[in-house]
């Protein structure tokens, strides 16, 4: 085989591989679009003309191969989002009279009663009005433990019924469901660019025209066609523009599958700089469900009498402690004394008159004083020792005599201590608790969870939480605030980074927060913070790699060491490298 045969063979390869590229270039030209394909075709034709047919062959083959590999890897980085979309409910069984009609999930209207059978996806957000079922909420919340839903429970679209039967009154339908919004927010978050990428975009904008001008100028000055063609091949900004978005969508998509919505963009940079995490207490660090932990009877009374008297007084109270007392009475099988004439005294307690004409009262020492009920020093000591344990203590009196006390406490979430330890491990130096509750209750929870007492601010009104966050910032701290998104909304908005919990219940919080947790799993917070840092790290690596490759190629072409084929090879390899690097973020964040 002589040289010219090889040459002809190379031309055939170049034409075979180049034909689809040329077709693409022509199509785009017809739409008055200047494309990379056109550059490649021009460079290849030029190479053949100057007798470098093998370069034309390599350039075209690499371009086609590279394109194929890129589409494969890009599809992978986008798979996390695609999986969310695939998990969306498509149809719904709606009750119409006695019939159940199968309709598209987008045809359900608010107020419709939707029927969910085993294996069905819940198609709406709403309240269960009949039946009960075990629901797998993992595609929304990322939690693997099934949720038991009965009448009155709030359920979200995208949950899967594992068994049972549910009728749900639709509250949010179609595109307004939490799940649908989640998908939109993930996609939009991927588009938010961190600062580092915005700088790069500006660079990429002038890069291509500059390199093409350099190619033309270079030829005019040096009459070196080879140099000019090499410049054409490296003029595509591929890796520069793809560097950040591919990493972002892989990272944000994979965390969304774990029920953690991280908004992208410069928030990632803010999250990476956080050194202080401030927690709301009630409902965030604690379960937010006060429970009776002690019923203590004073001399001459029984715990049942204490509970019965307390329950009768609390029967008409809306106070959150009342429901704890009534729940305990019901659990213990104690019937409240029949009563009438309730008198609610804000800040003190409740007084009622039983059907026997006796006065029953539940409240603090101030109430007892106001009612002139004697409380002995020993009884007072019992109250104080319980309060030191973080309990809220209510004294109970019947017919003017103190008969006992009830201790109520809100327990820390089971994973709260672990989450705080993990945050410290992740380099968060300061954990702060901001609460409207009293100092003793706050300090007790703080001690259990390992929060220093000088990092606890108690007795705060919502606007005082805002100034507490400002105080921290004034001291140089970069603060992330964790709250439920309702009472804490002002403080969340003030913090450098807002983290809303249990976002499936509060849509507004999901839209506004920088990080929204779809479950109440506190361990997701340290996970989200380290995952955000990892995304930013990989974005930065990609940016550095893309810029490095461009500098290398430009320098290489100028000194005559990079030619058409090697230029194309390095260029395609760099796009693959940033995509593959971004794919590392698909691996689930570490942790439980």
């Amino acid at each position, binding site marked *: 085989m002589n040289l010219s045969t090889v040459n002809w063979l190379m031309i055939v390869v170049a034409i075979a591989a180049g034909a689809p590229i040329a077709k*693409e270039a022509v*199509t*785009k030209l017809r*739409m008055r*679009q200047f*494309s*990379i394909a056109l550059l490649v075709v021009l460079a290849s034709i030029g190479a053949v003309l100057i007798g470098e047919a093998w370069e034309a062959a390599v350039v075209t083959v690499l371009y086609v191969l590279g*394109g194929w590999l*890129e*589409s494969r890897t*890009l*599809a992978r*980085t*986008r798979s996390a*989002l*695609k999986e969310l*979309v*695939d998990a*969306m409910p498509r149809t719904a069984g709606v009750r119409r009279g006695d019939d159940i009609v199968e309709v598209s999930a*987008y045809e359900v209207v608010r107020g419709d009663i939707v029927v969910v059978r085993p294996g069905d996806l819940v198609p709406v957000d709403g309240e269960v009005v009949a039946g009960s079922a075990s629901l797998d909420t993992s595609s929304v919340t990322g939690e693997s433990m099934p949720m038991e839903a009965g009448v009155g429970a709030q359920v979200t679209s995208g949950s899967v019924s594992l068994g049972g039967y549910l009728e749900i009154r639709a509250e949010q339908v*179609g*595109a*307004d469901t939490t799940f*649908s*919004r989640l*998908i*939109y927010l*993930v*996609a*939009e978050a*991927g*588009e938010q660019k961190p600062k580092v990428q915005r700088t790069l975009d500006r660079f990429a904008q002038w890069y291509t025209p500059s390199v093409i001008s350099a190619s033309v100028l270079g030829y005019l000055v040096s009459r070196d066609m080879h140099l000019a063609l090499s410049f054409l091949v490296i003029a*595509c*900004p*591929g890796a520069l*523009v*793809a560097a*950040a*978005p*591919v990493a*972002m*969508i892989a990272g944000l998509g994979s965390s969304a599958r774990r029920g953690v919505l991280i908004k992208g963009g410069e928030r990632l940079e803010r999250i990476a700089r956080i050194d202080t995490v401030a927690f709301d207490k009630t409902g965030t660090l604690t379960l937010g469900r006060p429970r009776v932990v002690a019923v203590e009877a004073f001399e001459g009374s029984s715990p049942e009498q204490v509970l019965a008297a307390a329950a009768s007084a609390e029967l008409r109270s809306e106070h959150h402690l009342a429901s704890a007392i009534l729940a305990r009475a019901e659990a213990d099988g104690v019937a409240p004394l029949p009563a009438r004439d309730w008198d609610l005294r804000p800040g003190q307690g409740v007084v009622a008159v039983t059907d026997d004409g006796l006065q029953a009262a539940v409240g603090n020492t101030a109430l007892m004083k106001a009612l002139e009920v004697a409380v002995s020093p020993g009884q007072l000591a019992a109250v104080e020792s319980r309060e030191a344990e973080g309990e809220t203590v209510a004294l109970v009196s019947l017919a003017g005599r103190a008969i006992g006390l009830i201790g109520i406490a809100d327990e820390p979430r089971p994973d709260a201590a672990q989450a705080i330890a993990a945050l410290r491990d992740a380099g968060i130096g300061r954990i702060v608790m901001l609460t409207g509750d009293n100092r003793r209750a706050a300090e007790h929870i703080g001690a259990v969870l390992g929060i220093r007492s000088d990092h606890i601010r108690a007795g705060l009104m919502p606007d005082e939480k805002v100034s507490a966050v400002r105080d921290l910032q004034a001291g140089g701290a970069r603060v992330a605030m964790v709250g439920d998104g309702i009472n804490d909304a002002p403080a969340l908005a003030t913090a450098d980074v807002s983290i809303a919990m249990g976002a499936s219940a509060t849509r507004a919080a999901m839209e506004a927060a920088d990080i929204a947790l779809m479950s109440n799993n506190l361990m997701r917070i340290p996970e989200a913070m380290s995952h955000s840092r990892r995304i930013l790290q990989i974005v930065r690596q990609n940016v550095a790699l893309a810029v490095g490759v461009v500098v290398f190629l430009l320098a290489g072409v100028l000194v005559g060491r990079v030619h058409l084929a090697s230029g194309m090879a390095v260029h395609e390899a760099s796009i693959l490298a940033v995509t593959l690097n971004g794919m590392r973020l698909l691996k689930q964040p570490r942790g439980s």
Partner: protein
Amino acid sequence: MSDIRREMILLSGLNCPTCAAKLEKAVQSTPGVNQAKVIFGAGSLNVEYDAAVVSYDKIAEVVSKMGLAVTARVPGSASR
């Protein structure tokens, strides 16, 4: 009567960021389309259009002319 709809259209074949910018321009200049935004990372075309003026099929046609295929449609909230 206008009938404003929003949709997120997931695409396959959206492999180069420059093509993404071009798709965005092409869809944006289609009559009846109020807003078109291509999210390269997500591989999606987020579009707001007036269904009384332009049909989804017309938009899909623009997409396929660019050599792209639709893999999924996610209707968006009309109120936002």
